[in-house]
């Protein structure tokens, strides 16, 4: 009996070992599979930075948000800045309708004052904000600020434009109602190219 017991133990040990090896192999297979669609992060950031520049050409802000005809368009980045120097390099030396562009990095948490946010015309909301993304969308929903974030979900919860990786490319979703609530006019060409999100709630005053 003792011998049988030992055999059972050995058998269970071997079964466990084989299972462990197979599990490891499977785990190894996951990143390998993922790697075949590896996103070039640097290039993706360059595309997104170029989108941010482009978006400023397809949005009309209320006239009173600029001090004068040459006031800069301010792009704010809220949360951890994923762009490094890419966005600075993208907008350097660029003008849109005669206005230069400038970038501001803003550290903001839910419940804090929105005074720094108000100074921006476009806000890229970093996913690093976590739960603060929704809070930020609520906080600026009725300000003339073009909010841009990551994922379809961003536009669904009230953000205006959300980047999505699709078929190895970066495309964007647009929430037209959120733009209307922010008193921003999105150019028809932009809306035509965007994936549309309709019937979503916009934070109330």
């Amino acid at each position: 009996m003792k011998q049988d017991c030992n055999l059972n133990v050995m058998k269970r040990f071997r079964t466990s070992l084989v299972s462990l090896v197979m599990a490891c192999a499977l785990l190894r297979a996951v990143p390998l599979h993922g790697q075949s669609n590896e996103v070039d992060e640097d290039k993706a950031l360059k595309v997104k930075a170029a989108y941010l520049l482009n978006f400023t050409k397809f949005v009309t802000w209320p006239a009173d948000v600029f001090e004068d005809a040459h006031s800069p368009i301010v792009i704010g980045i809220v949360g951890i800045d994923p762009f490094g120097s890419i966005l600075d390099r993208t907008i350097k030396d660029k003008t849109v309708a005669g206005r230069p562009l400038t970038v501001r990095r803003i550290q903001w948490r839910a419940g804090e004052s929105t005074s720094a946010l108000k100074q921006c015309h476009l806000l890229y909301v970093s996913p690093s904000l976590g739960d603060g993304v929704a809070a930020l969308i609520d906080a600026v929903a009725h300000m003339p600020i073009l909010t841009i974030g990551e994922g379809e979900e961003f536009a669904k919860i009230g953000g205006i434009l959300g980047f999505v990786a699709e078929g190895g490319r970066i495309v964007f979703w647009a929430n037209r109602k959120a733009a209307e609530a922010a008193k921003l006019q999105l150019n028809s060409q932009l809306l035509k190219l965007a994936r549309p999100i309709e019937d979503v709630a916009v934070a109330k005053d």
Partner: protein
Amino acid sequence: MELVGCLLMIVVLSAPASAQTPEPSANEKPPLPKDNLPNRDDRHPQSPEHKSEDAKNELADLSLEELMSVQVVTASRKAEPIDTVPYAMSVITKEDIRSAGARSIPEALRLAAGIDVAELSYSNAAVSPRGFHGFLSRQVLVLVDGRQIFDSHFGGTLWGAWPFQLEDIERIEVIRGPAGVVWGANAMNGVINIITKDPADQLGTTMKLTAGSRGAQTEYIGHAFRDEKLRLRLSGEYEGSDGFNRGGSWLGGLEDDYKTGRMNLYAIYDENPHDTFTLSAGSGVVDGGFPRTPLAGIGWSRNPGAQASYVSGSWSHIIDKDNTLKLNAYVNDFYGSPGVPQIDYRYQQLAFQLSQSLRPSENHALTWGMDTRADLLDASNSDPQMLSRNFVSTGILGFYVQDEWRLAPQWSLNLGGRLDYECYGGFQPSARAALTRHLGDTSHVYAAVSRAFQMPPVGLRFMDLPMLNGLAWAQGHRGIDSESLLAYELGYRTKLFDRLHLSLNAFWNEYDDMTTLSPQLGPPGLITLDIDNRAAASVYGVEMEARYPVSKKLTLLANYTHQELDWRSSAAYHDKDLMSPPKNKAMIGARYSATSDLHFSSNLYYVDAVTAPNVDFPFVARSIDSYLRWDLRAEYTFWKNSASFAVGVRNLTDDSHAEGGTLFLNYAEVPRMIYAEFRIQIRPR
């Protein structure tokens, strides 16, 4: 002239090849690429003049529709090069440096075609494009973020003395061929432009530790942060080694141990969208590093070492989108002694550079600039002497214009001219004309003809240096002329099969008034090494460089150079204290990513036999055999790419081999070296 005719004919004959690149109609004439001019100040990667795709966002001008079609899935973790400038140009990125396991900039430069590299000791190397590489290669200009590093006394660059930190380098751009129109004196055979990282791309704290054979160790720590307007990095490094410790003349033992501490600061301040300021400063102290030459004399010895410091600042002002003004200023302070009491010197260089880039019309780009530099040289600590005076100074003033015209949709013409004035050398002109035919978006062919010069460093004019306890003296004189070059180039760059990046270049360089150290009998000692312009030479050759991402995991690299030297002088070539250019030189490299975390790389180098100056017997050249060098590296990354551990071996193929020599150092052989490396970056949350 026949060669120029041939080059131009080839360019012209390539015109009918437009079948694959249909001619746009007149009103579709594409605008002139704004970044098509070599930039003399690559310090600020945001510079609108900046020409490298690494530094600008080449996607910034795409429309929304075009952006939606950009593939962001990559075939490799390597960024794709590069540009369409009518120069033979290589870019060595930070990924290249890391995967090649390079421990120094000269080692990284082995990755580029057409550049001769010979390691002379642990911390000294002979580096020059297209021939004339020696301990102090005067025909190549080295820049760090636009700041020139060129020895006031001997000329050339002392690689081990300046505070370079590989971890801070974004990329190295190598221009092979004359670039004197933009950079002036000394950019005769080419330019090596070292560009450091934008602090925004290195945020947080980075640490790197390496340890290897022969006591080699490096400890690096750097911290970078940013706020709304300021990006700043402060970093420092200690590097130490027992040296190569192989080789040495029978006249004296080899000591090439090396210890150095370095520190660098780099800050970028964006005052507003139009004005950007940069400030950089650094300092390094070297103990050892120069294996003492036995030619100094018996008993003539002191501890070798060096100190190098710099402060550099720039202001870039965008007047409008087609008009940018840039002002740079820097100070270099250097002290060095290679272990012999008669060579002990210090110099300061103060430089100002002003440039303006304009686009008068859609098809016309223009850059003009002026620069000045003062060199103050102090040799009062040398014993008994190295110059005929204790203190020497000089100044150089230059003015240049570079113009680019898009003549037709597929043709562009670059014309540049420059005039320099130096206190002792007088006026010297530089010029370059390049005609480019664009064969689609990714291919072009160009032909160029250039005139460039190398101004003798002021220390060479006043050199009065005893060797062998005063039995021999090296002596210069005020009237040494500048070396001049007439260069003809033909280049072709393309992308084949949508992946294979290929560049081919051919060149013919005609040199005149080359300086030599010709031995003559007579006072003040028994022999005088007279420094004068006694040589003419031709160097010609072809270069090939290729990069092929075979699959998502595998990238292959290759380069090949063939070059010939025709030396015409009563003085021997090795009297110039240079090595002959290797006739054939090649590199084959592979980068393989087994998984997203595990990377392997292999680099195999071949360099043909050369002749070199001979420390054992200076009147006869020393033969250096051809060598094969194989470097291997494996790297594992973890913690979301924030940390990595690597092991590697350099020069696996032999126990040790000689690569060159100089009269100013004892000779050392490059040994096999193994190393381990740990790197971690703690990014801000």
